[in-house]
């Protein structure tokens, strides 16, 4: 691109163009395009560079680590206990070895936060929640589960039907290693078909109850049924979504 030489005599000021407004509006348009297509661009970056390098790039794979209390409860593998009680035939307290001795479920699924960030292809390992419920035996009249965290602040809930979904697990391995403290280790919940806030960290207790009690985030305005497709009914109309 070339411009004609400046020929205007010094007495006459050179013509001016509103470059500022144009650049400003172009940047704003770029931002809008980014909002509209950012999800696809991000997937492309993830696919093109993999999660290793993708994690270093802006918009790449990052867990944003959340904690309600501002700290992480530190629970050692040895001291870890999962209490299961309520409307069950056999209230039990499981050690991490007890959980590991149960049939293992492993899969690779995204971690999708309700606020918009996503970590694709996270490797999960644990035991299906439905198996734990089978071990303790759910009594008649039970309709829901409540979950407690070692952080003494977070809580969650699932209906009994939701708890029996095959990709709802009590996870003790994540990203190919034991679940770290920041990710909710040694043991956390992973509810694959729902947004991340349903996957309670530092899982300490499960109560089987006769009515659904909204958890911490639900009391702060998040849907009780936080399906990834944005629906909020007790059942997900699209089970193939996850």
């Amino acid at each position, binding site marked *: 691109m070339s411009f004609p030489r400046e020929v205007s005599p010094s007495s006459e000021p050179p013509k001016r163009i509103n470059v500022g407004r144009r650049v*400003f509006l172009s940047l704003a348009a770029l*931002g809008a395009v980014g909002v509209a297509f950012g999800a696809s661009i991000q997937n492309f970056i993830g696919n093109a560079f993999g999660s290793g390098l993708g994690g270093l790039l802006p918009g790449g794979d990052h867990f944003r680590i959340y904690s309600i209390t501002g700290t992480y409860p530190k629970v050692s593998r040895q001291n870890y206990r999962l209490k299961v009680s309520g409307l069950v035939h056999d209230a039990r307290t499981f050690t991490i070895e007890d959980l590991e001795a149960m049939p293992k479920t492993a899969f690779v699924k995204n971690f999708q936060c309700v606020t918009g960030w996503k970590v694709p292809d996270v490797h999960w390992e644990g035991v299906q929640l439905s198996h734990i419920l089978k071990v303790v035996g759910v009594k008649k009249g039970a309709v829901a589960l409540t979950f407690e965290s070692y952080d003494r602040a977070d809580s969650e809930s699932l209906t009994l039907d939701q708890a029996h979904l095959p990709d709802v697990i009590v996870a003790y391995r994540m990203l190919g290693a034991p679940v770290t403290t920041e990710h909710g280790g040694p043991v956390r919940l992973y509810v694959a078909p729902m947004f991340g806030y349903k996957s309670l960290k530092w899982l300490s207790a499960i109560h089987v109850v006769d009515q659904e009690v909204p958890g911490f985030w639900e009391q702060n305005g998040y849907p009780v049924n936080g399906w990834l497709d944005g629906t909020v009914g007790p059942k997900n109309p699209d089970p193939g979504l996850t």
Partner: protein
Amino acid sequence: MTLTQATSETVRMLRFDRVQRGAHWITAALFGVLIVTAIPLYFGSFFGLVWPRHLVVQIHLWSGVALPVPIIVSLLGPWGASMRRDVRRINMWTRQEMRWLKTLGETPLVADKFNPGQKLNAIFIGASIVIMLVTGSMLQWFRFFPVPWREGATFVHDVFAFAIFAVVIGHIAMALTHRGALRSIFTGWVSESWAAKHAPVWLKEEKTGSDAID
């Protein structure tokens, strides 16, 4: 005139008035807080144990909401004449200025009050404030937006955060290597000889009372 004895070294010109300096430094302070709080939020894995995240989030959120306020307040109202004039300067470019920027300073330039690089910095920061405010609001008040938009907003917020960080580092580096310009954002004043060298169009305008912009 009483200034006939003065040399161009000692004659001072007001480059930034009190309102502009105030707007600059409050905006700079808010950007500083936003960048410092963004680091542990973005790289949570490394900083999460040290920082009470919810507090950091609140500081980041409200600094972000406040970010456009000093500029808007300085532009509106009877105190904003210089600010409004400088916005017009930053908006209007000669072809010579565009060419100077395209050739990265290799072509001749009779500089305005701000050189094209400074103008571009101001335009970028102005657009960034709007983009970060909009995408940040989408992340904070996400339930009004569909999930793919939230993902897109996260992406844009992240990418612009990196760009802003780079531009701010560049801005500070240029300021530290251009002492005359740096002094003027603290005190408001430059010498006439500085203006003759770095901003001849502006100097001529101030001397003659002409207006090259409008």
